[in-house]
């Protein structure tokens, strides 16, 4: 009996792909149910104001319109919008599913129209007359904290939603002792996650069995099930949520939204299935945004460039209401504030602020890109102050390999790391010395050329349910259930419902190896709360670390029982049975059993094993004891057109350490996608509101998405430092790219501009901004071109 080749660690083509490349996958908006109605939302044109009148007479008169609902119809029956994280002392007001008298951001749903077809639904939505007495809006989060600023919630008397203080006892002393200090004001601008499939919901109340089925494009179907049940006031047993094919999420589809709760209510009320799929404008205006931090960070450093302590103050935009996990995000920024460095003390204060804008929530990285950006800018600034090489400063500050698990001054415990090995590999691969020589030659020719560097770590594998994720008051474990068929085929049910990551392939590789079976004998099922009865979801780089570990644990449980069955079949004791890749043997005997043999025996009546139940299946849940800390080193080179400020990325290298990798092809994909998303924020992405709260970036005509021609080929390499916190040794990968690439590009641009005496720029690095900096610097130095 041949042992099958190991699949874990191999570049195995995705099993998800055949349906996707043929256009045969089913996304939510592809569903068509008998008698299905279509919803269209009427949204506020104003950022702030009181609703004076909603007149649906004309809308209701249109042929094909079934109903129009406003908040008056919902009062006391359904809502509010789910919010899971309410920080201690946080000023929190329930956010209604449709505006209750007040509107607080442009794009807020005010009414919903239901019609027989979506063309009529749209006509009718436009025919609903909404009169709003608009008020002065507050958009700028710093101005929102000033006395006399317009208030998002009158009843609070302030726009300050919450203040989070994380002082450290040693900070002030270290600042007093420091050879130097510096202070930077850093804006991490608000961006839109923009999954290519917007949010979409189909709700179907089945009056016969009194059961609600909700298809929704979500990263967290189980949370949605719970939220819908609570929102409607019905038993969770009556609700089934299905996340069919999900066209990207990037954090935006972690929270449950008002529309996801309202459509089920409408379906139950009308006893008809009802569908809504958001437009891109709705997605940009009324699905959660990310980032939106303004940070003042002060650093104390010694004469050698070692950073001793950080003092930070962050203003974090909440937007007009607290989204489901919105308040959790800034807490990560403090936790990761020290980055991969031996900074001894970090004191941080965060002010979460309400403004008349869409709410913020998780966006790929969720609080960690902000932290990495802050500390990387500090490292570059220290290097500049002391005239040291930026890599050298990092070398002096990096945590040493023997220090893990490392207790950071923020309370975070870094599981494992070898930052030096990663840095040395990146330096060699990038050929740092040659890059400096090339940059200096370009400078000698009068060009603006720069090199960027970022050395970073991050927090992955969310939970654990205590500690990091505690404010969410949710169990951040993950579930897996494995059911072995009599033929040895296996169904894997995972709660880590994916949206492009490739769990169907990666988990099948793991299970195939564990049982020595072909990948086609493994079926990975996800995203249906009636089939996968418990789960949390895919976010926070947890799919493999937490979800994969649960799969591994369930497989181990099955192997334990399989060994007992094999022992019975081989007439030996359990202890003497060896198992390698699903081949069961016994020392000193040529007899071998395959996994299929054992599976068959487990199901066959008549050869039941004494003391064992028939069948072969296992359930496992993994609750991590700590978060994992992948890390990496990014280098890039850029040039800037002096005349126009146009920025060109010439080279970009990413050397990352994510621990053990199940499928390098998928891992590359996660890293590449993340890097470009991070570069997109640095280069061009920005959600902008005007002073009155109108969204100026409401379509792709104005919200600049990264496109293929904007980037060079990204070079990838890895080191491997397994995590000790899970049996896979995996550290998590989904968000990594966005964390290092953003500061790396800004570092390169500031390096390019350094000869002009420019020391600061905020993202996005748009040509006009760079041109202005260049011109001002030239004017200061006498206008020489």
């Amino acid at each position: 009996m041949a042992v099958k080749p190991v699949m874990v660690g191999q570049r195995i083509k995705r099993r998800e792909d055949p349906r996707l490349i043929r256009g045969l996958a089913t996304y939510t908006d592809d569903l068509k149910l008998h008698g299905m109605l279509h919803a269209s939302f009427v949204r506020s044109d104003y950022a702030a104001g009181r609703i004076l009148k909603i007149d649906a007479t004309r809308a209701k008169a249109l042929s094909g319109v079934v109903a129009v609902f406003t908040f008056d119809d919902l009062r006391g029956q359904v809502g509010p919008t789910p919010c899971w994280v309410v920080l201690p002392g946080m000023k929190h007001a329930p956010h209604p599913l449709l505006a209750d008298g007040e509107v607080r951001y442009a794009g807020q749903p005010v009414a919903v129209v239901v019609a027989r077809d979506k063309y009529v639904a749209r006509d009718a939505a436009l025919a609903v007359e909404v009169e709003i007495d608009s008020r002065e809006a507050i958009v700028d989060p710093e101005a929102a904290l000033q006395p006399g600023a317009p208030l998002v919630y009158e009843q609070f008397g302030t726009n300050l939603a919450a203040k989070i203080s994380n002082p450290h006892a040693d900070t002030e002393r270290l600042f007093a002792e420091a050879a130097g200090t510096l202070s930077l004001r850093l804006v991490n601008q608000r961006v839109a996650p923009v999954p290519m499939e917007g949010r979409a919901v189909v709700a179907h109340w089945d009056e016969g069995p009194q059961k609600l089925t909700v298809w929704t494009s979500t990263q967290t179907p189980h949370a949605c099930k719970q939220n819908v049940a609570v929102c409607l006031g019905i038993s969770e047993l009556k609700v089934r949520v299905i996340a069919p094919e999900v066209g990207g999420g990037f954090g935006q589809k972690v929270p449950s939204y008002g529309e996801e709760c309202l459509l089920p209510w409408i379906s139950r009320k009308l006893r008809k299935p009802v569908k809504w799929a958001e437009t891109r404008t709705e997605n940009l205006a009324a699905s959660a945004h990310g980032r939106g931090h303004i940070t003042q960070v002060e650093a104390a450093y010694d004469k050698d460039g070692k950073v001793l302590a950080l003092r930070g103050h962050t203003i974090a935009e909440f937007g007009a209401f607290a989204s489901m996990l919105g308040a959790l995000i800034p807490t990560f920024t403090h936790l990761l504030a020290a980055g991969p460095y031996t900074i001894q003390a970090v004191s941080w204060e965060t002010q979460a602020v309400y403004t008349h804008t869409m709410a913020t929530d998780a966006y790929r990285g969720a609080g960690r890109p902000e932290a990495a950006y802050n500390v990387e800018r500090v490292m570059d600034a220290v290097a500049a102050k002391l005239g040291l090489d930026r890599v050298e400063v990092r070398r002096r500050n990096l945590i040493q390999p023997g220090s893990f698990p490392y207790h950071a001054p923020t309370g975070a415990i870094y599981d494992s790391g070898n930052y030096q090995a990663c840095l040395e590999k990146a330096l060699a691969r990038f050929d740092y010395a040659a890059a400096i020589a090339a940059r200096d030659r370009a400078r000698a020719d009068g060009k603006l050329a720069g090199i960027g560097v970022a050395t970073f770590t991050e927090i992955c594998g969310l939970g654990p349910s205590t500690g990091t994720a505690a404010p969410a008051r949710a169990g951040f474990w993950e579930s897996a259930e494995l059911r072995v068929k009599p033929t040895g085929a296996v169904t894997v049910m995972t709660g880590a419902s994916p949206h492009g990551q490739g769990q169907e392939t990666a988990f099948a590789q793991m299970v195939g190896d564990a049982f020595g079976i072909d990948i086609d004998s493994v079926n990975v099922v996800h995203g249906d709360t009636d089939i996968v009865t418990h789960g949390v979801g895919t976010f926070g780089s947890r799919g493999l670390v937490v979800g994969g570990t649960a799969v591994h644990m369930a497989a181990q449980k099955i192997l334990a029982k399989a060994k007992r069955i094999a022992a019975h079949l081989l007439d030996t004791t359990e202890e003497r049975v060896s198992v390698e890749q699903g081949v069961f043997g016994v020392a000193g005997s040529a007899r071998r059993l395959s996994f299929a043999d054992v599976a068959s025996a487990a199901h066959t009546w008549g050869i039941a094993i004494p003391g064992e139940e028939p069948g072969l299946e296992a359930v496992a849940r993994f609750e991590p004891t700590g978060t994992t800390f992948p890390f990496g080193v990014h280098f890039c080179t850029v040039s800037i057109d002096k005349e126009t400020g146009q920025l060109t990325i010439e080279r970009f290298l990413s050397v990352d350490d994510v621990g053990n990798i199940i499928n390098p092809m998928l891992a590359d994909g996660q890293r590449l996608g993340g890097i470009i998303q991070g570069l997109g924020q640095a280069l061009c992405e920005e959600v902008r509101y005007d002073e009155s709260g109108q969204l100026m970036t409401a379509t792709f005509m104005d919200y600049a998405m990264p496109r293929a021609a904007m980037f060079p080929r990204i070079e990838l390499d890895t080191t491997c430092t397994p995590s000790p916190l899970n049996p896979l040794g995996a550290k998590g990968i989904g968000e990594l790219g966005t964390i290092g690439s953003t500061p790396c590009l800004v570092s390169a641009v500031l390096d390019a501009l350094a000869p002009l005496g420019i020391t600061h720029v905020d993202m996005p690095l748009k040509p006009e901004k760079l041109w202005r900096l260049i011109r001002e610097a030239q004017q200061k130095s006498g206008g020489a071109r």
Partner: protein
Amino acid sequence: MIPAEFDYAAPRTLAEATRLLAGTEGAKVLGGGMSLIPALKHRLAAAPLLVDLGRVEGLDKISVIGGRIRIGGRATHAALMSHPDLARVHVFAETGEVLADPQVRNRGTFGGSLVHADPAADWPAVFIALAGEATLVSATGTRTVGADAFFQSLMTSAVQEGEILSEVNFALPGAKTGTAYTKLRQPASGFAIVGVAACIRAERTGVIDEVRIGVTGVNGVPFRARSLEDRLRGRAVSGPALRAFASEIAEAAPLDDMHASAEYRRHLLGVYAVRSIERAIARAQQG
């Protein structure tokens, strides 16, 4: 995003098309639809009747007859880029390459781009630089409008309700004449923040005999940079002198929006004018 209802007609002849347009007040012409359809979807535009030119015979024809280039009103961007008779007029392929994307270039039309008169569209600059002439047909007759009079105000061309742009014609640039188009793309939409088209006849010595410069993206209306042309004509200008002239284009009254300030647009106009002029001169000297 769904348009309001409208009636639809797909005439076979231009005469029928103009008759249909004349017969319904507010009727609009549907060419490639690349500007009109998004506007209808966003309900920024509406019409009781759309007259689709898609089936009008011969309206997509491109030909070079008697030293003039004739471009049918429905000729697509892609057709202009690949037409063999236009190969040596570099500005066509050069503009096409930086205009929108391949899918849009397969549907969108040269004529539509002019009629729509978007201040950031690319072709208006080329139309001006090549001293094009548009033929406008209506139920009551035919008239021609030259490039210098074609763009009237923001999003408004000389084309009146009931008129169809049936053809655009230019003199085929002759010997010693070079053309060029350069632009800075708005990163989201791909439209021009600044776009400059130049058509220059120059001697081997670099002396500019004839020059026309069309500008898009800068003002609310595409325009001809006559003040610059006047300073260039009859001289060999390059380097700092050229840059100095280009930085003082009197016609510039730049737009100011979230994608570029007026000041930046004014500066870019000088930069891109130099780039297009230098490129056109180099091509003229080769030809």
